[in-house]
Structure formats: structure tokens, C-alpha cells
């Protein structure tokens, strides 16, 4: 029998009657990088929650270095040498990098914190693992990449032997991903064990030794990465062959619907969108690719009337709409599936029907003389629930009680039912399961085929490549290039997203 650092034996975790993890077993060796692959909701986070002491298993056991481990809180896990790098960083923006690292394990002199000693310890570690961090900076002022390094340093500082990375590449640029992969390899070379949670197959191929695939709370397979094809991994993850072929009809794509010229937008007094020109035609999907935080959110907010335009013009079907109110823009035929479904797209404690009416409640026939016609609002809701296959008990159910995918369907239904001339979709499939992704993609293509203009903003390159007729790349607030999805690769896109090659000149 081999020496395992971590051994998970027949673990089951139930929430009520629901089995989030069902008899899961896996092993992790010293110096190994193990990938944990699964869709959203497959049970990855639950499993790692138990390994990091946030959750306790219903049945089964965890062995650490061959000994049975009882972890009832994160401190226990930490003592056993388990370090977790969360997807949403567990950092305190108002504190300095140094304070964030030592918090909870502060070296003291008398009753005061010994900052010199702490800094020396951390600097030594930083050199050993080539982690570039600025100890004095406040976390709120540093880049996402450095925040991640701070998280890694937190674990190193606590002498972790097992590192769990939860979706670590989601918000990184391709270059930062390269850097992270180097760090992962350095950790493994020093004899640390690494668990790498992801749903990105390419990264698994690049960095992992073995891969455990889980689906619906069960382990489907454990494979040697070098001997397995990406397609095979994908099928194991989803449980069926995927049909990626989309029915894109040939469209004329001549008449411009959205025309943006020289657009400047500011956020927190910083220029976030700088001189953007953009046109979307009828029957066309234009994809906006780019790493999170390069001005996409501000662009959408300006287009939908939620943020002031500093300079430049926005025209929809020839009408000037820069700095028009959100309502006016909606009335001019702009629909929007917003990025943040739960906080922006929906009002969770209101009913499905009320949410479906959010953009129409204020005018006749839903509202007359200041009074709302609830009978009509509910009837319309009922019809849309049927048309868009929203799985719910009734139109007066609270939207907050629906699943993520069905919540997204409510938004899609509301925006599409208004027959918008321009549909803006911002990360429309983030955090929903594969079934809902396919559904939403179909609906977007349907809109395109019906001759409407679609502006798709997404951080998922595959989604952009699959749906778009034309792709523009945003970097630091500017459009740095435009490419034809038929004649590009995600490598080329990745480089452009990092601001490396302005491809428009290459062509």
C-alpha cells in the first residue's frame, strides 16, 4: 500500500434528503497534482468543504497521513496541514497583505504583534516559491493575480502540505494562469500535494497527474491524465455525448442596429471604457471577449443606461441613446440579460409573475392610473412560464425559490418576450448547469436567426467562439482587435485578451 497524504474513504454528505456526496473515495499522494473535475453542482465544493473542515461528513472517513482525521472547523483542517485557496478569495480588502497573511497566527512580542518577524518569515517563503507579493500594499489595491498569490502565501505561512485550489483560473489572464501553473509545479516539486478543482479540460491536461471525475455526487472515474483524451473527460463529466452543433442560418447582417462611436465611460473616477467603436447588425451575434475587469461591465452599464457616458455616442436603430434613462433605452428595444442574475436581473422575494413584468409593469395594460392590474400580470406570467419552460409550481411562487437555471430562464423569457431589436447578454450561462446552457444558447441563436442584433459579453472563450459571428476583444477599456471566429483559436484570443498582439494590424 502506498503512503497517501490524503485518503477519502466512502464519504457521504446529505443535506436533508439530498445526497450532495454519495460514497466518494479518492487518494492523494505526496508531490502529486490531482484534478477534480465536475459540473456546477456535481458536489465538488461539498467534498472540499469537508476536507477543509467547513462541513462534517454524514458517513465515511478522511485519513490524513494515514491517521483518521476529525475536522469540525477550519482550524482543525489547518492544523492537519490543509490549505484552501478559495474561488472567492477570503481576504480583507481594508487590511494590508501582511495582515491578511498572518491573521489568526500572528507572531507576538508581549501583547503586541511582531511585524518584523512576520515579514521576515514571509519574505523567506516568497523567495523559496518565487511568489511576488507586496507586503505593505492594501489588498483592495492589488491585482486579482496578486490576491491569489496572497492566498497561496497564507497557506504556505501556515505550513500546509495539502493545497486545495477551487477554480483558481476563473478570473485570471492567460499569463497569470501560466504563472499559477508554474507555482503549482513548484509546490509539487517541494513535495506538497495539490488538489485542483476545475471544469476546464485544457488546464487539467496541462498540469494534473491524475483526474477524478464526479457527477451528481458520485465518483465516475479516476484516470491518468496523460492517457485520456479531452473529449473523453468531457463525456465523463456530463454523462452523455454533447451536441454542440448549432443551427445558424445565413443572415444578411447589413442593417446596423447598435452603433457605438468613441465611447468613454468612467467608474470611480477612472476611465474604464476608452474610445470604443462598436457596431452590431441585424441577424448578427457580436461576441466581446476579454478578461474580467477590462471595461466590459461598464460598457454594458453605459449601453443599458445604468452608468453615465462621459464622451461619445450610442445609437440604436438610428436613435441617439447615450445617457438616456434605463427605461427609455428598454422602450427603444434594448433587452439585457445582466451579468449578476440574483442581484441585478431579479428581485428574489417577488413572485415569478412580478419579475416577468419588471420591465412592463409601469405602463398600460399592466398599470392604469397608477394602479396595477395583478390579474393581467399573473396571466401573462403564466403564459411565459409555459412558453419558456420555466419549471415552477405557479406564477405566484417566489423567484428566489427557483433553481439557478430556471431563474435565468425567467430573465431570458422577460427580455426575449419584449422582442428587442438588440439583445445584450452578459455571461448568460455563468453558474448554470449544462442543460440550461444549451437552452440559453439555443434561445440566443433563435434571436439571431429572427434577424435581431445580439451583443454577447462572456469570459468563457468557448461560448464566445461557438456563438459569435464576429468577435471583438476588449483590453483595458479598448477594443484591441476584431476577429472572425472561423479563423481563430483560443490561443490567439488569449493573447489578444492579454493585450499582446493587436491582430487587426496582422491581417
Amino acid at each position, binding site marked *: 500500500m502506498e503512503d497517501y497524504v490524503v485518503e477519502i474513504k466512502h464519504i457521504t454528505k446529505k443535506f436533508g434528503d439530498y445526497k450532495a456526496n454519495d460514497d466518494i473515495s479518492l487518494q492523494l499522494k505526496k508531490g502529486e497534482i490531482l484534478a477534480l473535475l465536475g459540473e456546477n453542482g456535481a458536489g465538488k465544493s461539498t467534498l472540499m468543504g469537508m476536507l477543509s473542515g467547513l*462541513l462534517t461528513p454524514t458517513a465515511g472517513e478522511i485519513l490524513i497521513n494515514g491517521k483518521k482525521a476529525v475536522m469540525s472547523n477550519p482550524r482543525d483542517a489547518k492544523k492537519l496541514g490543509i490549505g484552501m485557496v478559495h474561488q472567492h478569495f477570503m*481576504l*480583507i*480588502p481594508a487590511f494590508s497583505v501582511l495582515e491578511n497573511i498572518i*491573521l489568526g497566527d500572528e507572531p507576538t512580542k508581549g501583547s503586541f504583534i511582531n511585524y518584523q518577524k512576520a515579514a521576515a518569515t514571509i519574505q523567506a517563503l516568497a523567495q523559496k516559491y518565487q511568489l511576488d507579493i507586496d507586503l505593505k500594499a492594501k489588498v483592495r489595491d492589488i491585482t486579482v493575480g496578486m490576491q491569489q498569490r496572497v492566498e497561496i502565501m497564507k497557506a504556505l505561512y501556515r505550513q500546509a502540505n495539502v493545497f486545495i485550489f477551487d477554480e483558481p483560473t476563473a478570473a485570471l489572464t492567460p499569463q497569470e494562469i501560466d504563472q499559477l501553473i508554474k507555482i503549482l509545479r513548484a509546490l509539487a516539486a517541494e513535495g506538497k500535494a495539490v488538489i485542483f478543482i476545475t471544469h476546464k479540460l485544457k488546464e487539467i491536461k496541462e498540469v494534473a497527474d491524475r483526474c477524478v471525475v464526479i457527477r451528481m455526487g458520485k465518483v465516475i472515474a479516476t484516470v491518468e491524465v496523460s492517457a485520456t483524451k479531452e473529449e473523453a473527460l468531457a463525456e465523463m463529466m456530463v454523462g452523455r455525448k454533447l451536441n454542440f452543433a448549432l443551427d445558424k442560418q445565413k443572415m444578411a447582417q447589413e442593417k446596423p442596429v447598435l452603433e457605438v462611436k468613441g465611447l468613454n465611460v468612467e467608474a470611480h473616477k477612472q476611465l474604464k471604457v476608452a474610445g470604443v467603436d462598436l457596431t452590431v447588425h441585424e441577424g448578427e451575434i457580436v461576441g466581446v471577449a476579454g478578461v474580467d475587469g477590462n471595461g466590459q461591465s461598464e460598457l454594458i452599464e453605459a449601453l443599458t443606461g445604468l452608468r453615465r457616458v462621459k464622451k461619445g455616442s450610442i445609437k440604436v436603430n438610428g436613435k441617439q441613446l447615450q445617457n438616456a434613462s434605463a427605461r427609455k433605452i428598454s422602450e427603444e428595444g434594448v433587452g439585457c440579460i445582466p451579468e449578476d442574475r440574483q442581484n441585478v436581473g431579479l428581485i428574489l422575494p417577488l413572485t415569478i409573475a412580478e419579475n416577468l413584468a419588471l420591465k412592463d409593469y409601469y405602463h398600460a395594460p399592466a398599470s392604469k392610473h397608477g394602479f396595477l392590474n395583478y390579474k393581467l400580470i399573473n396571466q401573462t406570467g403564466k403564459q411565459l412560464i409555459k412558453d419558456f419552460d420555466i419549471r415552477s409550481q405557479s406564477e405566484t411562487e417566489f423567484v428566489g425559490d427557483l433553481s439557478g437555471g430556471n431563474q435565468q430562464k425567467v430573465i431570458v423569457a422577460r427580455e426575449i418576450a419584449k422582442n428587442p431589436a438588440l439583445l445584450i447578454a452578459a455571461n448568460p450561462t455563468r453558474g448554470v448547469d449544462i442543460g440550461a446552457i444549451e437552452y440559453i444558447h439555443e434561445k440566443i441563436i433563435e434571436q439571431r436567426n429572427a434577424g435581431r442584433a445580439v451583443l454577447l459579453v462572456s469570459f468563457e472563450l468557448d461560448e464566445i467562439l461557438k456563438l459569435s459571428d464576429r468577435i471583438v476583444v476588449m483590453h483595458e477599456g479598448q477594443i484591441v482587435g476584431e476577429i472572425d471566429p472561423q479563423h481563430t483559436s483560443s490561443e490567439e484570443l488569449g493573447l489578444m485578451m492579454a493585450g499582446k498582439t493587436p491582430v487587426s494590424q496582422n491581417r
Partner: protein
Amino acid sequence: MSLTTILMTVFSTTLIYAAPLIFTALGGTFSERSGVVNVGLEGMMIVGAFSSTVFNLAFANVLGSATPWISLLVGAVFGLLFSILHAVATINFRADHIISGTVLNLMAPALCVFLTRIFYSGKGQTPVLDQSMGTFTFPVLSQIPFIGKVLFTRTSLVAFLAVLVGIASWYFLYRTNIGLRLRSVGENPTAADTLGINVGTYRYLGVLLSGFLGGIGGAVMAQSITLNFSASTISGQGFMSLAAMIFGKWNPLGATGAAIFFGLAQSLPIIGGYIPVLSHVNSVWFQIAPYAITVIVLVFFLGKAVAPAADGQNYIKGK
């Protein structure tokens, strides 16, 4: 009156009125730094004022001139006990912090006047204290020319103590590991929890410290200003302390400074009569000033970002 005398009067009156505010504002700072909003400071002061007065009246003939000082401690202890109510409600039972704080403000006067009537044969107010905090002249320092007279003669000793507590509070919050942890649960309790910091423990610490200091604040009010206890002993000082805490950007030194400033504003109606320029100004302006200034400062000088990020948010494990 000579300039020196006027300055001395202004300074000592300011300090007398500032002392209760400083203690209480520091209490509020600890609570809110740990993430528990505290609009219940007024209630904590009432309990401190009441308990210290009862103790003082009962033990003055035994303890003599030390009575007011020991009474402060009694006020502190009862303020702390009373604040447990807020801690339990917000930390264990997920109550809305503002509602829970309001309960303290409703409960404290009801309970204290109820007890006053029971202890003092049905009257709504206690007898007047025999042993109270008078003024104090520093032995050596008062000999310094001019400054000695203005700052260290016939002044409020407890206010100097309050300022020292303010400085100590700053070192505690910003230089010790307990302070770092207390602030961390007020900024991002989830992150603190993943590092093994017990969010509840540190929030309890914050709230109980606010009860302790708020109790002292109330006690100081009763022992040095009103000299008895009734329903109107504490009338807005708790809220003014809350304002001082905000004005001071949730920082102990800032809160201390703001409290001294409000002390000045509160003392103006009293000393205004002595100062030629101010004697014609209607006293209503001095009364309104601390509150109006707070609003103006909030509107024009304070960003939203200065409050602890998780102030007022209940921490629910496993979310």
C-alpha cells in the same frame, strides 16, 4: 474675566461634558469594529448611570471620596451585563442590529425607572449624590505658567483618564493580535472563520467592551454632571457618542477627538454667557450644533467606505 480664566473655564467645561461621550464613543467603536452596529449606546449609558448612582448612594458613607470612582466600575459592570442582551440577540439569534439596539434603548429607561421607584419609595428620581466627581488640579503640572492654569487647574480628571483610554484603545485595536482579529470579524467574518478565528467570540468581545465603556460613560454623566438619576439623566448623549464614533471614522483617536469637539459644543450654552462674542447668540444654536455638524460632516466629508465592511451583517456559518 481674564483670558486665562475664560480659557480655563472653556477647557474644563468642555472636558466635563466630553468625558461621558469619549468613553461611550470608544465603546461604540469596539462594537462596530467587530461588526455589530450599536445604536443601543444610549441604553447602555442609562444602565451605567442608574447602577452607579444606586451604588454611590448606598456606599458613600462607607467609601467616602473614593465612591464616585468605584461607582464608575459598578456602572461599567452593569453596562456590560446589559450589553449581553444585544450580543445574544445579534450574534446568536441573528437579530437585526438596529432593532436589537432599539430594544436596549426602550428597555433601559423602563427597567431603570421601574427599579428607581422600587428602591426610592415610588419616586421617579433618586436623591442627589453627596459624593460626586469634583474638579481636580494636577499637583505639579498646574504650576506651569499659563498652560498649567488653562489645562491642569480645576479640570476634569476623569476626562484625562478617558483620553488615555482612547489612546490605549488605539494601540489595542491596531497593534495587538486580539485587536487585529476583532477588526477582521468586522470586515470579513467568513475569511476570519476560515483562518480559525471564532467570529462569535470576537464579536462578543466587541459588544461587551461597548457595554463596559458605555456603562462608564453613563456613570460619568451621573457622577459628574446630573448628580442623580432620573429618566432624563441621559438625554441623547448615547446618540451623540454614536455620532462622535462616526465623525471619528470608527477610529478610537478620531472618536476621542470628535467627542471632545461635541463636549465643547455642549458646553457652549453654559459658558457662552461668559464670552462676549457668544453671549448674544441664542443658545438653541449651540444645542443643535453637534447634531447638525454630524449630518453635514457625514454628507460632505465621509465616504461610505470607512465603516467596517461587515458592520451590521450577521454571520451565518456555512453560507
